[in-house]
């Protein structure tokens, strides 16, 4: 193995970022557009907001007021598809382009950019804007690598158990508090022709990772995950294998999506419609679902049903009863080659640090602007859905008390994450066993650890 290094100038700038072959050339070159145009005062920001509603809201309520309150700084916003964001960023940054404010899909991704020295250090700005006093401590810890702050966790999320409140009312059911109750309910619902959990990965096969996340956190527990993520124990240990076996059993029972094949093919619209119509009783999904629940429940969806959420119950003795997996939808950083780093940092501060502003935005566009701030009851405007407020306060309080778990997409490196997504399907189709799956993950994770790709793992309060 040699160690000859090449530079960006030698290969990448000249040939564009289409280095993976002519078949990808068009797509990759497209990613080079939209970068910072430099010029004094301009700050380029790529946002992952989807839909004309949230994008218009951003323009009117965030972009314009920011420019007004920061004379001389012009914000140049480009909305990128969330699924494509990292690929476009990777290409642009490698080519010396890209936005001034860099949004990555999570800490594990940010780590790679930090290692490649593509992000500016934010410590001075943290002092200038008082982020240590405003933001949650664990969030800043997570963005610090080698003692320097380089990324701010943003768009906080967690996994929840949603239930069709109207259906539960009709059937005299209450949200399950433990595994026995959950399984008894699933049996009863199945017997009555109702799918216990609306589920499917047809639109986004990677979303299968929600389930290992849920079963490892609520069966194996956050302490076991912390130990494995920090290399103290192995993912091949029985406690992780058993969690995956339990999930497979539930899928084999037809509890998730109706059948294994439907679990593979159901798209989000189908599964959410089933949930709203009462064909399915519950839905294991992230807090982001609250933003679209209105499309599937009530008059707008052509039914009279209502929804609510509850924390996912512990699936084994000893796991905390109210546990929230910590998910970080994105991180915010300042491009090392930003033309206007002060303006970029000012916008990061504007976006995350002012509770009054942020809560307004969070009420208007649920889950899009969840900043790492210590929220309490009464912090939010009256226009906010009380279910959303309850979730935000619960997550904020739980994480500040150390009562949190780990989502795969936030705390596992990219290769381990892809392994979790890809190979999980093979467990469900019985191509591999749960033990083989976990052993395989252990090997991939060890490689990731050896390469220093594991992001900082914050310790849960119970560990």
């Amino acid at each position: 193995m040699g160690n000859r290094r090449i530079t960006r100038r030698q290969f990448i700038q000249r040939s564009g970022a289409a280095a993976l072959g002519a078949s990808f050339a068009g797509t990759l070159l497209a990613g080079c557009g939209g970068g910072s145009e430099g010029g004094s005062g301009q700050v380029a920001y790529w946002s992952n907001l989807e839909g004309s509603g949230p994008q218009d809201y951003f323009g009117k309520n965030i972009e314009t007021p920011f420019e007004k309150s920061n004379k001389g700084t012009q914000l140049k916003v480009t909305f990128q598809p969330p699924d494509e964001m990292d690929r476009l960023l990777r290409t642009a940054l490698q080519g010396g382009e890209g936005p001034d404010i860099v949004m990555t899909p999570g800490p594990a991704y940010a780590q790679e950019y930090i290692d490649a020295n593509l992000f500016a250090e934010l410590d001075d700005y943290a002092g200038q804007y008082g982020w240590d006093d405003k933001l949650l401590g664990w969030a800043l810890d997570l963005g610090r690598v080698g003692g320097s702050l380089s990324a701010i966790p943003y768009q906080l999320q967690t996994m929840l158990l949603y239930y069709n409140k109207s259906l539960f009312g009709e059937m005299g059911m209450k949200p399950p508090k433990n595994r026995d109750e959950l399984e008894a309910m699933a049996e009863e619902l199945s017997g009555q022709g109702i799918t216990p959990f609306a589920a499917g990965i047809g639109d986004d096969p990677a979303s299968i990772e929600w389930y290992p996340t849920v079963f490892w956190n609520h069966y194996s527990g956050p302490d076991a995950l912390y130990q494995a993520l920090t290399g103290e124990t192995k993912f091949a240990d029985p406690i992780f294998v058993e969690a995956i076996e339990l999930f497979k059993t539930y899928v084999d029972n037809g509890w998730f999506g109706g059948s294994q094949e439907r679990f593979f093919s159901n798209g989000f619209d189908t599964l959410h419609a089933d949930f709203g119509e009462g064909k399915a009783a519950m839905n294991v999904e992230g807090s982001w679902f609250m933003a679209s629940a209105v499309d599937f429940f009530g008059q707008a969806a052509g039914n009279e049903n209502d929804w609510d959420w509850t924390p996912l119950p512990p699936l084994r003795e000893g796991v905390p009863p109210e546990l929230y997996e910590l998910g970080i939808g994105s991180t915010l950083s300042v491009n090392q080659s930003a033309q206007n780093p002060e303006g970029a940092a000012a916008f990061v501060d504007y976006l995350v640090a002012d509770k009054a502003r942020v809560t307004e935005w969070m009420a208007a566009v649920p889950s899009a602007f969840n900043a790492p701030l210590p929220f309490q009851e009464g912090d939010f405007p009256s226009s906010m859905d009380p279910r959303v407020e309850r979730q935000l306060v619960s997550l904020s309080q739980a994480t500040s008390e150390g009562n949190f778990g780990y989502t795969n997409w936030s705390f596992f490196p990219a290769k381990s994450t892809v392994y979790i997504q890809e190979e999980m399907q093979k467990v469900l189709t019985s191509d591999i066993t749960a033990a083989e799956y976990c052993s395989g993950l252990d090997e991939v994770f060890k490689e990731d650890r050896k390469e220093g790709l594991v992001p900082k793992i914050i310790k849960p309060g119970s560990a």
Partner: protein
Amino acid sequence: MEANHTAAVPKRAPGSLRRRRRMLAWVFMLPLLVVNVLVILGPSVATIYYSFTDWSGLGPAEFVGLENYREILSDGDFYLAMWHNILWTLIFLTVPISMGLLGAFLLSQINRFQIFFRIVYFIPYVVASVVNAALWQNILDPDRGIGSTLASIGIPFLDGVSFFGSERLALPAVAFVNNWAWWGFVVLLFLTALQSVDAQLYDAAKVDGAGRWQQFINVTIPGIRPTLVFVVLLTIINSLLVFDYVYIITRGGPAGASEVVGTLMYKEAFERFEAGYAAAMGLGLSFVSGLIVLVFIFLRRRGWEI
């Protein structure tokens, strides 16, 4: 006048004109050449380099020699994906080509509404693959698609069948969708070729007592052989490079049941961040495509009428 004019032109003029014309041709070709060098040759050279490196797509690349190629040779996922490409090729060498020949032959027999049918057959080809895919995902939805509609009128054999969720059906189902968009184009190619076959050959065959099938085998097929070979070559290369429909509909799932090299390569590059390994994979695929083209050229030079 003419003689005087001729006499006035220097003897070297025709050669000079030819040179100027050649120069002009090069001038016209130059922009295209520059574009090709920039978007094909440059990235291709870079791809060759990166295939010998361990590169994540970010930062510097570490030279690893033939390591990526060695890894490919022991990569079960790559072999499975390549096998799916071969199956895909076999499907597309048979189904759309047979349908295309039949469609073109039937269309050649009618005059009225021929243009209408040509347009109808061709429309799916010009519709964006993402639209075609969404259309068929809805049509083949196990709960809300054609299966449940047929079941509601007493034909239940497709009810609840999850075409894209079944390991057994996913690959052929995606191929079916892609074929739906592709075969109309093949019809038009064959129809154009059929129209250039000399009608007198059919008359002569009839006089010799040839039936429809014998006319098809002995007149039509030889008459459209260059187009047929072109379509076969196009099909093989397209099948090796297939990506869009698989990525849009199943992303290679479930559990790799519809994974092809194109989607695997994408995942390696942009999900696992093994850009060097993906480059080696892409180069391997290009090598196979190039080999097939070379075989065709070789056979043609050996006198095969293809």
